[in-house]
């Protein structure tokens, strides 16, 4: 989830102003939180935002806040606060960063967007398609602020997404809608849902096209640009704003491709980033790869907001399919095939696997996957780190590992 106020310095894409889009988004959220006539829902980043949008909620994504805490390195001060309250250093550092920030009464949203604090929710909606930590995270807020807590519990780690899985989750969505209607006092307008799903589909298709521009040699954007540019697809899915933003961005990138613009001048190697970003080290890692004339041209992370299954003709079933099919919710064979396919499509020379200490669900190096892909001719290196907790990251060792890996390619 993008911390859009962070400049990683590659400046591959500048004109399409993600920052302005995010400023407007947070300004509106701040206003909604203070307006008794408007309702704010908190939602997990790959949760059913379309339903919430269609029901008139303004939607806030705490994972975005976690990323912002990590990128600004405020996490270093807030994680220990949560640890001291019994939230282990071994669990999701978005959770510990965010809960610690709440306990400490700090948020980077104040400096970045002028908000007094995080927007207080009227309802908390999570989906465990990524992990169970989001459930524990939202439950803390539900207890603290006495706010309704609603959850979607999909089947996890699927080899295939089968009709019964889709029926299960669609059924859970229907129950969620009924619970939300009890909060809003207004029934869901099916047309509004279809429109939200249609907008999400259009935006996500455009986002995919944006990422696909990196198939070009040299790539016009890198993973590090992507972590900034992905902001609207995370927080503004289901709105026209996201669609308009990505249409502009895509046109800009296509022009860069036509002009032969390289995100990394003299691109020599093309790398796939597997796992979470190390938010507090985006710039350093971006510079490290660029200094070795390597472009990180594709990533599991940025691709996680491509939802090609959205279909306004079948809004709930297609949402169920899309949110079940995400990479993180699949078995290892799927993940192996997925990375192998992308390695071919993007001309990947090697994979950097980020083993994030507090995010085992989004780390894929612990079950022999790097070795299996290496046997297929896709070499990789594993670096230890974390999304937010820099206590788990060694600058020196990571630099040596990455540089030595690039030397071998």
């Amino acid at each position, binding site marked *: 989830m993008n911390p859009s106020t962070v400049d990683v310095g590659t400046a591959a894409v500048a004109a399409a102003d993600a920052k302005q889009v995010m400023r407007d988004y947070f300004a509106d959220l701040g206003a909604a939180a203070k307006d008794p006539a408007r309702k704010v829902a908190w939602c997990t980043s790959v949760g059913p935002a379309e339903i919430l949008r269609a029901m008139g909620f303004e939607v806030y994504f705490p994972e975005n806040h976690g990323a912002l805490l990590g990128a600004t390195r405020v996490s270093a001060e807030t994680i220990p606060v949560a640890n001291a309250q019994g939230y282990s250093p071994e669990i999701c550092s978005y959770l510990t960063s965010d809960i610690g920030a709440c306990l400490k009464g700090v948020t980077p949203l104040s400096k970045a967007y002028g908000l007094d604090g995080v927007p207080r929710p009227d309802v908390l909606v999570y989906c465990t398609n990524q992990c169970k930590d989001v459930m524990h995270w939202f439950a803390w807020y539900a207890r603290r602020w006495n706010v309704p807590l609603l959850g979607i519990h999909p089947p996890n780690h699927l080899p295939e997404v089968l009709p019964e899985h889709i029926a299960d989750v669609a059924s859970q969505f229907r129950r969620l809608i009924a619970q939300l209607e009890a909060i809003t006092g207004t029934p869901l307008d099916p047309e509004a849902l279809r429109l939200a799903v249609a907008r999400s589909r259009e935006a996500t298709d455009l986002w995919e096209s944006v990422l696909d521009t990196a198939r070009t040699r040299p790539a016009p954007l890198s993973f590090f640009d992507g972590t900034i540019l992905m902001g609207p697809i995370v927080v503004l899915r289901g709105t026209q704003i996201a669609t308009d933003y990505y249409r502009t961005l895509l046109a800009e990138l296509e022009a860069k491709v036509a002009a032969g613009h390289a995100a990394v001048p003299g691109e020599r190697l093309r790398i796939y980033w597997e796992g979470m970003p190390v938010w507090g080290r985006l710039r350093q890692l971006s510079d490290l790869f660029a200094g070795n004339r390597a472009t990180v041209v594709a990533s599991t992370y940025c691709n996680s907001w491509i939802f090609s299954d959205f279909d306004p003709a079948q809004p709930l079933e297609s949402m169920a399919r899309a949110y079940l099919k995400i990479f993180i919710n699949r078995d290892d064979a799927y993940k192996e095939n997925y990375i192998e396919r992308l390695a071919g499509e993007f001309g990947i020379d090697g994979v950097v696997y980020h083993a994030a200490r507090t995010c085992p669900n989004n780390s894929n190096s612990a079950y022999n996957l790097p070795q299996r892909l*290496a046997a297929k001719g896709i*070499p990789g290196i*594993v670096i*230890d780190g974390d999304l937010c907790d820099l206590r*788990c990251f*060694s600058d*020196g*060792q990571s*630099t*040596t*590992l990455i*540089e*030595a890996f690039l*030397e*071998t390619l």
Partner: protein
Amino acid sequence: MNTATDPARSGSDATVRTEVFWGVDCGSAEIKVAAIDREGRLLTTRRCRTLFPLVEHVHRSLAGHGDELSAILDSDRAELPPDGRQPSLRPGHKVFATGYGRHHLGFVQGQLTEIKSHYLGVQHQLRLQQDYTIIDIGGQDAKVIRATPGRVEKFAINRKCAAGTGSFIEELAHRLEVPMHELPRLAAGHDKDLTLNSYCTVFSGQEVIKLLMQGERVENLIHAMYRSVVKRVLEMTAIDTDTLVFSGGVMNHHPILMPLFAERFGTVRTILAPNAQFCGALGAAIHGLNEESDDGLPNHQ
């Protein structure tokens, strides 16, 4: 990082043929330097403790004393020039850096990782014609490098903690109040195979204390410490090889580790690399020489 811009100071004057290639290996415990001539012949090696400011201590190592070969201009051998604190290289001398401190030496002509430098240092000296595996144990990391006669095929470095590295040995020696140089001799007097379980250097220290309290012999604990180093290294990656080459300062000072590794492999040829502690520095110098070769290939191995 300061960057030298004066060719006379940086030794990068294109009109002067390079006669001496220096490698500097800035490790966590020691700075090692090695110099070679254009034929790849080793001219000198030197080492000193890693102290800070780093560049001052690298400068002293490169300068040497008295009649020693020096990379530094005579006028500046005694101390760093005040203008930017970067060493001033003699014409015809070039310096290449490796090790954790490699990015902090602004005056060098190139850098490379420890993986590549150790490989180049080993291969240059041994000229092996078959695939082999290097086990290098340094002050703060352990490396396993799968090599061919022409390149590094793959590698692994210890993850996160110091167990299996020189720091681990140093910490346990401190706990046991035994001088480092006494460790191999004492380990040879062991009469029991003990196991230290923990990944963690601190927790391993606690295990040692507990065993001492139970009356265990120091010799057995030191032997267990060495076995622990072997275990930590071997669990880093699967090693399938018939030739093991050892390099690095730890192997140099604790050769008892070699048979402990060998016994885990059945039939395996073991070689302690010549100048084991200087393989990284030598490799960095070889890298510099290769950079200048006409065809760009590592033809000095």
